[in-house]
């Protein structure tokens, strides 16, 4: 498995888009900077700034979309260029192959949220909108790590769909639908979609302002939702990778 993960990193050489996508981590911190600059707020609560920069659209829309794109990129070459049969006769296990890709998504997701966290601190403290406090910075880092970790699991179905497709158009379209569906479904039933369930887990203590749930917070149910989707994704990946020869 370690060899598979190492080779996954080697395959990312000269993949500029993968690194450019990382810049999306700066989008919401930058907008938060503009927002607070526009209203000329100084001395705001750190959590108010972080709500904008890290706990809003970043983890509900931007991160899922970026991870969906990454899943598609990771799977595209091998599917498009008919490489899987060469890999199978090495031999490598189909599930080892799938989970090595997932590991890359996990690392990327965590890095993405850590960049968001660092940018949030820099964009809030340096212009002087927020006073630097270790407590709030640690809270931000902890939450960003949680988001980065759980978001990768929430995006596993997209990785499985990308594994089943030769092209990239369908996985990207499904990523868009999946990301926005997760956002909108929160008002209907939070425990139907992995992304809305992720939001439940992240904001389980009610310590993130602005995230209001229409249902009672049920963390085990949220984990169950993600688990069920992930099991379905692994089964799908196992079947489709088995057929790709």
């Amino acid at each position, binding site marked *: 498995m370690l*060899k*598979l993960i190492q080779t996954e990193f080697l395959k990312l050489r000269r*993949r500029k888009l993968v690194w450019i996508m990382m810049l999306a981590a700066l989008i919401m911190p930058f907008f938060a900077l503009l927002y607070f600059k526009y209203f000329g707020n100084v001395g705001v609560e750190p959590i108010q700034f972080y709500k904008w920069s890290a706990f809003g659209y970043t983890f509900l829309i931007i991160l899922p979309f970026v991870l969906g794109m990454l899943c598609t990129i990771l799977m595209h070459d091998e599917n498009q*260029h*008919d490489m899987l*049969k*060469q*890999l199978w*006769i*090495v031999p490598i296990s189909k599930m080892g192959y799938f989970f090595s890709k997932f590991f890359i998504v996990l690392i990327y997701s965590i890095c993405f949220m850590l960049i968001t966290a660092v940018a949030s601190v820099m964009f809030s403290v340096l212009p002087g909108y927020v006073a630097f406090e270790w407590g709030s910075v640690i809270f931000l880092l902890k939450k960003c790590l949680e988001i980065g970790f759980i978001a990768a699991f929430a995006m596993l179905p997209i990785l499985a769909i990308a594994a089943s497709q030769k092209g990239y158009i369908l996985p990207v379209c499904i990523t868009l639908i999946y990301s926005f569906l997760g956002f909108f479904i929160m008002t209907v039933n939070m425990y139907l979609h992995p992304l809305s369930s992720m939001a439940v887990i992240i904001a389980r203590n009610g310590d993130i302002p602005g995230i209001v749930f229409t249902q009672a917070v049920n963390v085990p149910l949220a984990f169950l939702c993600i688990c069920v989707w992930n099991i379905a994704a692994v089964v799908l990946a196992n079947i489709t990778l088995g057929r790709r020869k």
Partner: protein
Amino acid sequence: MNDFVIETKQLTKIYGEQTAVSSVNLHVKKGRIYGLLGRNGAGKTTIMKMILGLIPITSGEVDVLGRNIKGQEKRVYPRIGAIIETPGFYPNLTGTENLEIFAKLRGTAAPHAVENALKVVGLPYKDKKLFSKYSLGMKQRLGIANAILHDPELLILDEPTNGLDPIGIAEVRDFIKNLSVERGKTILISSHILSEISLLADDIGIIDHGVLLEESSMGELEKKNRKYILLQVSDIPKASLILERQFSLKDYSVQDDHTLRLYDTALDMGEINKALVTQNVTVISSQLCNDTLEDYFKKITGGEGIA
């Protein structure tokens, strides 16, 4: 224990209602080059995929290196190198980087394995050219380099000379031959180019519409392609009468109004010509002929030729 590196028994593959491969019994001997010859769509790639366990078998059995490959992949695959169809690699990486990935995945311990494999196929080591910029011939060479990277005992090469120029074809043919002669590798190679197989293979299997029509050594096949004397004369009935009465000849055939084939090549043609001319039969020509492998292929596939 038999000495077959690959043995298939009644190997069959059916897609829906179409039979792609029908009851194929293939026998690839150790240390020899086995050429699987057939037109495009004859079932060569399907057979190779089944041998490698890449597609499920409808019925029949496959033994590779003395084992049924199903469930034994981890033991058998490291002893096999293969190219199936056009080899694909990562377009954003160089040839060397691509092979380094496969070497890492295979756990290839030999130092300079990548460098040596590239050297064998005539590609530069540590070149900066990306795979996406490679010509078809270079891609094919890299595929072969990947197949021999881990020094396997058995090579399964599906149309390895596809896309190569004539010089490239000759080079690939030479190093495939060397792999067999000098390193004792067993090689199963498929092609739709008859001349390629005839120049390379020790044993040959002719496949058509999924059926293995013939399997024999090249030596045996050459023997089967009978030599004959092609005799062109002015009067066939009279010439036949002379041959039968004067030379007691029975093993001949009439091709057309002026042409006879005499299958006894030990005959004294001087005497025959003399007898015919004496009895007023004009001899237009007489020559020793041999059926080519292509003629033989046409004959056993029911008249259709091959490249």
